[in-house]
């Protein structure tokens, strides 16, 4: 019973939504079920938030390692929640947009969250360099091709590409580095991307059919 009901729901809704694509009167079902999912996901926020609170309060109470950071987590959680719910310092009233310019929420978002997110994203610059140093080695033929392509793209994305290869006549302008970089993106890269996308599409069909028909059940918890 524990698995039968979810499997039945999966089968019924899955078949219905596939049919809805081809039957116009059912065309809005897809949007309706998407809204249902969003409503469920919103309720699930309470589960996740509750779990977060429980874990960190537990850490504080039992003085587990690194417990002071839990104070930071809980303070940030509470402050942001209060600022958004009670519209603290919001120029509008309680029904105003949560991030109206001038509100505490807007200030914390732009003063804390935006710089923190940008900082984490900027780590990519360092990791790209270390990954490139480690990965772009001419160990074999394919790796050498990859290395050459990477070089051309790296140069092509900077003004130096044109400075170095601008002397190449217009008749063979394809070999100017920026144009070569664009050609690599538009031809070999595009072919590979499309092939991967076709494979992914077919994989999604196969996986979805297994889920709808109940062949694949382990995500429900157990094989039985």
């Amino acid at each position, binding site marked *: 019973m524990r698995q039968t009901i979810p499997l039945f729901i999966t089968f019924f809704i899955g078949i219905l939504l596939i049919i809805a694509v081809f039957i116009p009167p059912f065309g809005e079902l897809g949007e309706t079920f998407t809204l249902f999912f*969003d409503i469920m996901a919103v309720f699930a926020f309470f589960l996740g938030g509750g779990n977060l609170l429980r874990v960190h309060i537990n850490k504080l109470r039992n003085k587990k390692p690194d417990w002071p950071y839990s104070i930071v987590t809980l303070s940030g959680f509470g402050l942001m929640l209060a600022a958004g719910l009670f519209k603290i310092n919001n120029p509008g009233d309680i029904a105003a947009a949560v991030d109206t310019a001038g509100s505490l929420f*807007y200030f914390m978002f732009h003063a804390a969250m935006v710089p923190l997110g940008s900082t984490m994203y900027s780590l990519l610059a360092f990791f790209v360099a270390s990954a490139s140093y480690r990965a772009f080695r001419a160990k074999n033929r394919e790796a050498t091709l990859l290395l050459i392509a990477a070089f051309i793209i790296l140069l092509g994305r900077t003004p130096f590409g044109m400075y170095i290869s601008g002397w190449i006549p217009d008749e063979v302008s394809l070999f100017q580095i920026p144009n070569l970089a664009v050609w690599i993106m538009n031809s070999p890269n595009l072919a590979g991307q499309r092939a991967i996308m076709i494979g992914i599409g077919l994989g999604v069909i196969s996986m979805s059919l297994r889920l709808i028909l109940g062949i694949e059940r382990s995500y429900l918890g157990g094989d039985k």
Partner: protein
Amino acid sequence: MENLGVIISLIIIFGGLAWLFWRSVQGREVERRIIFVFIFVAVAAPILFPITFEEKATPVVKSLFDKIESLPEKSKVLISFDYDPAMQPEVQPMANALSRHCLEKGHTVVFMCLWATGQSLLTATLESVIKPEFPELVDGTDYISVGYKAGNEGVLNVIVSDFIRMFPTDINGTPLDSTVIFQDIKSCADFDLILAVGGGRPGPKEWVLFVGDPAKVPIGVGVAAVVAPQLYPYYPRQVVGILGGVKGAAEYETELAAAHPRFDEVDKPGLRMMGPQTLAHMVIMAFIVIGNIAMFRARRKAE
């Protein structure tokens, strides 16, 4: 002073790289933390001592620019801010440039977002770019912001046929069907151009699949550089132009300033960031060479 700073920075970087090159000839690998230091200097130096390069628009950028230029005045354009603070440095410059261009050409612009975090970034564009630079324009008549709606592709599925059903009011609570702009906009098919700025999901690809193709509306995209290759399959049929990463933003800002000289004096963050990007690329290429030399030397020693 700035030129001196640039020269000193370049001497430090290239001198250090020469030293590492000599070490690689001896077959010695470079430690990860040294690579991080070099990247830090390569990115920080052009920010502290600005280096800018001239940019020329590539065809994929130029085609989007030309599309907006060629639209008749009062065309209806939808701009969607689908990104978060992490992508902001890369994508916000192009969002600002596209917004400026559309409003300068007299188009009617509707702003929206599919990401919750996009709403604050959209507000930032409204407050820091649109209101100061276009004080004569009226919110609700010349442009309007409808804000964020949860639902990802579900939102697109609805607005492709009924925009007001998903967004009954703008961010100030004004019913959309009482605004001048939405008198003749019922669905996405009524827009002359949709600009999707972002890079994740939902993002430009979802706009093409769920709105651009079904409603036959041209889509222009501004995306983080890493996402741009995914959109080339759609260019030029479904996607009229692609701004990819900081370079795309820099190229667009250059074109915009050339065609509309009043934007020559505004801050061009895309162009500004090309200095660090260029130097960082050079450093990465140098490390790739150094790494390969170290590998070959070590292999020969082992033999």
